[in-house]
């Protein structure tokens, strides 16, 4: 008895694989012909299995008409082999091309030992909540211990014991200051323009256009100047710090420092943190001025306010106290950005993807800390009437 199975949808001549199932008593012979390669059309094991008789003692193969084969052919042979093992049937591989026979032996050879892999299971809701909470507590602990390490490092710096390279410090000063000026300038002018536009529409309703200067002046100096500069620095410098330290971790450079008796916090974190602490208030001040300039552009172009009027109104509205508030915030933000970048960099794992995660995490941590601390400070200043 011989039954033929060939695929119904033929793509192109020469790219079909067919199989004839011939059963002689309890012995089965499979005749493969045509092309059994990736891309050609041929039946799957599930399609040919129904053609097998109930009881089979042996399966043999005939590949006289087999034109071409590749790994795809091995897949169906593996299925047949599994079927044979399951049904206590002997598989006689002699009729297969010798390459196929060798590959079959290779693929069926079991490894000496099962590789160790921790069992993965989907955690329950409560387990997830528990894990996340533990993780959060650990993260807070690490945050605090890093704060402690940084504080000790500053104590060593002031007692003249901390060691870092002056050239590193100067490099980071430049990176955090002059190099960041163009992007900070652009964003600040635009924020000033946006504030003025939003305000202009509302203030015009009351004929109080001149107060646009108060809005932009106070908005920029107390809030937006420092905050926008900080967010830019989080994306630009915080991420860079995390990536630099993360790469040094991967490259065993931090290990090397430790074994040389050099504290990595002194050597790597201090120059970065100090540079940003110094540069951040200056950047915020620059952002304040440019934002006010941006506001003036809108006032002059859309509300016909003269430069002198705008200047006088701004001078009356914005007193030194407001600049002080902005600069204080800028110092705090600068610390948070550099702190997050360095913390995530020092915590980085030892792979390339860990560096990416560290950089992303540094930006997220910095932005969250900036916004939270800003909210706290704004409320506090309000209560203290500063």
């Amino acid at each position: 008895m011989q039954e033929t199975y060939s695929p119904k949808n033929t793509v192109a001549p020469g790219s079909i694989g067919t199989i004839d199932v011939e059963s002689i008593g309890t012995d089965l012979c499979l005749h493969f012909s045509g092309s059994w390669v990736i891309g050609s059309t041929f039946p799957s094991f599930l399609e040919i299995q129904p053609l097998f008789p109930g009881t089979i003692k042996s399966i043999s193969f005939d590949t006289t008409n087999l034109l071409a084969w590749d790994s795809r052919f091995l897949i169906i042979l593996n299925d047949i082999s599994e079927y044979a093992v399951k049904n206590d049937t002997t598989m006689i591989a002699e009729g297969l091309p010798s390459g196929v026979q060798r590959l079959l032996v290779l693929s069926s050879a079991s490894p000496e030992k099962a590789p160790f892999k921790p069992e993965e299971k989907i955690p329950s809701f409560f387990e997830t909540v528990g894990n996340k909470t533990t993780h959060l507590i650990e993260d807070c602990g690490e945050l605090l211990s890093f704060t402690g390490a940084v504080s000790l490092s500053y104590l060593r710096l002031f007692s003249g014991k901390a060691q870092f390279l002056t050239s590193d410090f100067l490099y980071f000063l430049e990176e955090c200051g002059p190099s960041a000026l163009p992007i900070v300038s652009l964003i600040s002018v635009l924020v000033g323009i946006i504030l003025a536009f939003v305000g202009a529409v509302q203030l015009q309703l009351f004929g109080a256009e001149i107060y646009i200067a108060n809005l932009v002046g106070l908005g920029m100096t107390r809030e937006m100047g420092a905050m926008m500069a900080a967010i830019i620095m989080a994306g630009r410098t915080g991420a860079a710090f995390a990536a630099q330290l993360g790469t040094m971790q991967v490259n065993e450079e931090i290990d090397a420092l430790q074994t040389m008796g050099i504290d990595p916090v002194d050597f790597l974190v201090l120059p970065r943190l100090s540079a940003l602490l110094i540069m951040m208030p200056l950047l915020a001040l620059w952002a304040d001025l440019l934002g006010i300039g941006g506001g003036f552009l809108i006032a002059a172009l859309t509300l016909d306010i003269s430069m002198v009027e705008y200047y006088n109104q701004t001078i009356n509205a914005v007193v030194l106290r407001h600049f002080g508030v902005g600069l204080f915030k800028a110092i705090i933000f600068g610390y948070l950005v550099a702190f997050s970048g360095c913390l995530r960099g020092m915590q980085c794992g030892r792979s390339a993807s860990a560096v990416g995660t560290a950089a992303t995490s540094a930006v997220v941590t910095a932005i969250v800390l900036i916004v939270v601390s800003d909210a706290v400070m704004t409320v506090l200043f309000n209560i203290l009437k500063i």
Partner: protein
Amino acid sequence: MQPQPLITVSNLTMAYGSFILQRDLNFTIRQGDIFIIMGDSGCGKSTLLRHMIGLKEPAAGSIHFHDTNFWNASEGQRNQIMRQCGILYQSSALFSSMTLAENVALPLRQNSDLAPNEIAELVSLKLRLVGLAGFDQFYPSEISGGMKKRAALARAIALDPEILFFDEPSAGLDPISASLLDNLILELRDSLNATIIIVTHELASIFAIGNNSIFLDSDSRTMIASGPPQTLLQTTKIHKVKQFLTRGGTLQNPFPISQKPDKETPSHE
């Protein structure tokens, strides 16, 4: 007379959290040894090194340098021990923002009161010793992998250490560079009178320079053999060690020693 024990590891257990990597490690490294830590991939060779150089605390057991228990010692004592050690990391770990000269100068500046010109002279000498004369002002990114290893070696020997640790020194090197590095290690042992500890699975190096060794096994998670590599090759009855030392049975006596190690330590299994 056998040389003095320099490092004694007793009942050391290494773990990551609750996962025990290796347990009950006991071995002694003697003055002047070129001691090989070998074993299959993932068995914890590099982690053992990290325990010995003060980067990871053991879960149990102790590591003594002479008579000082390293992990019970004060920070000052530990720093003093580490000043006697030079380490060559697998990835070289050169500071990419510094020139080779600055890299080699860093441990000198940190651990000595030498004047800048003296440091410069020493740096130049160390770079000459490893065959990198004239490369003082090059950055790590501007030199080849083999040169990086040598520059890192120059930094490791900056303070004339008593003990030198090497983590897979010949990884990624061509056979010629690897054998040059082996010769350099032998030269350093003899000239600095240093003790050398090498983590490697490079058979050529193991047989060419090692005079004592231990074999860590990832299945039983402990050391299953110790002794001079050449003796282990000839006498071991442990299948895995035999397989390892004969490259899976494909080499019978792969690397007959051309330079006989001058110290032999009795093997035990």
